[in-house]
């Protein structure tokens, strides 16, 4: 916000000019529609750059993916129109369903834990009763600044049976060497990585929303001696429901797109991670390893559809609940 003398003097001059000749707004009507039109044009110019890139980077690829998914590449005859054959194949593909199942498991276990903890931290910090709240907030958020790739590599080492400190501690206590990378544990280990990374991010969104609640809303309750838990449950959480919904939707989208964790852990735990561990990883392997572009496009498209439907259902549920509540009042 630097002070620039030249602009300030010009505005001054314009202002002085306006004061000197106040009757400048003569033919009101015509001028009005003219300015409206000029403002419309300005608005379109402002949004144009975004929408040009938006169209080319989001809409065109989406349409193209849909188009690709309708073809099949055959050894003889090359690209051929296949209708919905790729989709039919996906519906009968246990690898696709397996990946989707793992993601669903992730969704019902990891997301509630992560968001529950994030909400707890946000509420706890909002009460302002802990010493060093500011530092706590920043330290919890810090993992978000760590790239998922680095986080996965790092946790891969931490989980490692040789020099991983977790195994070292477990051995030291006499629990033997836990195998975090076994086929049975790997999904849980992955949940931990994602939780570690994103609690802070979600906490910050909720915390920011808490800070924006006008204090009057719970001032009275606090003065009358309502406990912090009561205030959190009855006033604070309902007030920040939109922010919580936002974190839920982001987490749903994020879970369905899991890619980094399986693809990187695959290097150290190849037995535990199949090439279809998550749908996203499956689509990648189909496209770039198996060279089945059309089928990969169909999987990607289906996945997108599933995400859109789930996010929509989440939002719809929230809207219904809101309406019910409004009627109840």
């Amino acid at each position, binding site marked *: *916000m630097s002070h620039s003398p030249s602009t300030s003097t010009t505005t001054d001059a314009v202002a002085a000019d*306006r004061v000197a000749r106040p009757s400048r707004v003569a033919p009101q009507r015509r001028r009005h529609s003219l300015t409206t039109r000029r403002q419309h044009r300005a608005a379109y110019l402002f949004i144009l750059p975004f929408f040009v890139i938006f169209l080319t980077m989001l809409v065109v690829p989406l349409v193209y993916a849909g188009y690709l998914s309708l073809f099949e590449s055959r050894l003889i005859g090359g690209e051929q129109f296949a209708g919905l054959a790729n989709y039919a194949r996906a519906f009968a593909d246990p690898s696709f369903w397996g990946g989707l199942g793992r993601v669903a498991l992730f969704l019902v276990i990891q997301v509630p834990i992560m968001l529950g903890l994030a909400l707890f931290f946000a509420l706890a910090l909002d009460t302002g009763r802990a010493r060093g709240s500011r530092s*706590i907030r920043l330290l919890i958020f810090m993992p978000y600044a760590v790239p998922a790739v*680095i986080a996965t590599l790092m946790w891969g080492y931490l989980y490692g049976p040789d020099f991983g400190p977790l195994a070292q501690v477990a051995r030291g206590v006499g629990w033997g060497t836990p195998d975090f990378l076994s086929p049975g544990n790997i999904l849980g280990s992955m949940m931990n990585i994602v939780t570690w990374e994103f609690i802070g991010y979600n906490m910050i969104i909720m915390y920011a929303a808490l800070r924006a609640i006008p204090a009057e809303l719970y001032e009275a309750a606090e003065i009358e001696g309502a406990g912090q838990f009561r205030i959190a449950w009855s006033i604070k959480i309902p007030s920040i429901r939109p*922010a919580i919904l936002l974190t839920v939707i982001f987490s749903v989208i994020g879970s369905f797109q899991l890619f980094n964790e399986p693809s990187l852990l695959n290097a150290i735990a190849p037995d535990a991670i199949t090439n279809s561990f998550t749908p996203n990883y499956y689509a990648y392997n189909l496209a770039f390893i198996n060279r089945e572009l059309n089928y990969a496009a169909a999987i990607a498209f289906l996945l997108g559809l599933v995400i859109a439907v789930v996010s929509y259902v989440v939002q719809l549920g929230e809207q219904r609940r809101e309406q019910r509540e409004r009627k109840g009042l």
Partner: protein
Amino acid sequence: MTSLETRAVVTGRPARTPRRLRRYVPAKRRSWLLTVLLWLCVLYFVLPLWWLLVASTKDTSALFSTFGLWFAPEFSLGDNLVELFTVRGGLFARWLLNTVVYAVVSAVGATVLSAMAGYAFAKYEFPGQKALFSITLGAVMIPLTALALPTYLLFARAGLTDTPWSIIIPSLVSPFGVYLMRVYAADAIPDSLVEAARVDGAGEFRIFWQVGLRLLGPGLVTVFLFSLVGTWNNYFLPLIMLNTSELYPITVGLAQLQSAASAGGGSQAVFSTVITGSFVSILPLVIAFLFLQRYWQSGLGTGGVKG
């Protein structure tokens, strides 16, 4: 009065800071229990990073032979750094530079595009506004996966794969950024100020540039930082777009080093290189977040409210 306001903005003095309602602060009763509990939880977030810091000061043999959460008698950070920046002919420095360029260019671009669009959505009324904004919001839900593959094929056709553009152009679109800027602009830029500037005879673009942008500070920092992190952390897109290792960002480069290390090949020295590289690569973002925390936190504050 109106010209006074405009001037206040131009000189950078806030004319009307939209202050939030004063918070009721109960007599600062500190809770001993809560403090201990929260600090214990902080360990979970910090210890892995502490391990990374400690591990980056060890050579590979110490990595295997000493306790993970404390330093080895021998301090090898210097050697590790030298090794890191000389491995494969100094490729790591190149990756670092690539990451910075991709992330900064994308973030600046995304912030400018989001600010312009968000400002227009907040401060103008124009035909098609609602529809366009709904489309933008809906796009938040489009999974990257559905896009990455066809984007790759489109770029391949345009001859753009394996160029920096294949990373930067897709990163310029930030529907969430537009949403955040719209909410923020609606709050932070009073209509009266825009009107005043218009009466003063300023053009629409000049109003945006000189009045709007100045009031959007924290919102801009928020969108900038989150786009920066988005591109900095991106792995999937560069993984499929780039083939030349000279063009890799750190994420893809380190992942490649790591898979070389796990595949064995006898080169166990690579473990300490990967770990030191990981440590070095998270420093810039951590520092950026620390320095700019005041701005991005207040920026998110406005964005999160109307969620």
